C-alpha cells in the first residue's frame, strides 16, 4: 500500500511516499511507522485512508492509499 506523507512528517520519515505491504490495519501501520521513525511521536497528525479521515482502527487492503497529514502553521 502507498503511504503519502505531508508537511513536517516528510522530514521525519525522509520521503513523501512510503510503500508498505505488511500492515493489515491502521493501528498496525502506525505501530510500524512509530517503531521505524521514533521521532514521529513528537508530531500530531491525522490519518486518511483513500482520502477519508479515519477515527480509531480500520482494516487496510494492499490497494489502499493512506495519508498522514499534520496541520501547517505557516502563512
Amino acid at each position, binding site marked *: 500500500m502507498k503511504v503519502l506523507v505531508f508537511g513536517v512528517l516528510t522530514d521525519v520519515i525522509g520521503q513523501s511516499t512510503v510503500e508498505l505491504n505488511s500492515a493489515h490495519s491502521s493501528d498496525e501501520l502506525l505501530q510500524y511507522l512509530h517503531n521505524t521513525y521514533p521521532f514521529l511521536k513528537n508530531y500530531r497528525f491525522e490519518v486518511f485512508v483513500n482520502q477519508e479521515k479515519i477515527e480509531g482502527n480500520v482494516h487496510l487492503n494492499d490497494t489502499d492509499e493512506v495519508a498522514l497529514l499534520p496541520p*501547517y502553521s505557516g502563512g
Partner: protein
Amino acid sequence: MLTQPEINRYRRQIQLNEIQLKGQEQLKNAKVLVIGAGGLGCPVLQYLCAAGVGHLGIVDFDLVDETNLHRQVIFGDDDVGKPKARVVYQKLIQQNKYIKLEHHDCKLDVGNALELFSAYHIIVDCSDNFETRYIINDACVHLKKPMVYGGIHKFEGQMAVFNLNQNSPTYRCAFPEKSADADIINCSITGVLGTLPGIIGTMQANEVLKIITGIGEVVSGKMILYNGLNNTMNQINLRRNKDVLCSHFTG
C-alpha cells in the same frame, strides 16, 4: 451600482459569462477580512483588491522584517521596520481607488475577534500560528461566516474553505486539537520557498471570488494539498463533526 469607470476597469472580468455585471456588483458589495498581511495575506489582498472586492479589511500587528522580503513581494527594502497592515493599506490605495480599505494594526485575540469579524462577510485565514487559526475558526463558527484557510510548510500548502454553511466542516473537523509542539514550526524555523505563499494565497483569493459570486465549485468538504517540489496536488475529504465544539466562544 457600478459606475461607468468601474465597468471599464473590470471589463475583462465582467466579460466572463459566469460573472457579468451582476457578479461584479456582488464583488463590490462584498466585505472581506484578511487575517495576516504576510506571505499568504499579501497575494490574497492584492488579487481581491484588483478584482474589485468593495470592502477589504487587513489585520496584522507585525512589522516588515528583512527576512520577509523574498516571499512577501508587496514589500520592498524601504518598508523594513514599518507596520505591515499600514504599508499594505497604503499600497492597495494606490492599486484601486474604487474600493474601501481598513487596516487594523492589532493582534487578533479572543477579545477582539467577534467584533472585528462581525462587519465582514468572509474571513480569510492567512495567519502564521495555530493559536490564531483556532480563534479564527471558532469566531467564524460562532458568527456563521465562511473561513478561507491557507497554511504553508516549506514547499507544501494546504487550502480549504471551512464553515461555508452549517453542514460544512470546520478547521477543528480537520485538526481537532491544538498541538503545542507543532506551534513552534513556522516559516522562521523551517524556511519556505518564496513562490509557495503566492500560489496558495492566490488559490485562497480564487475561492473568495467564487464564494462571493456563487460560481464554480468551492473547496468545501475537502482540502487541497499542494506540493511545489513534486508538482503534486492531492485532496482529502472532510465532514462536519457535530461533536467538535468551537471552544473559544461557547453558546
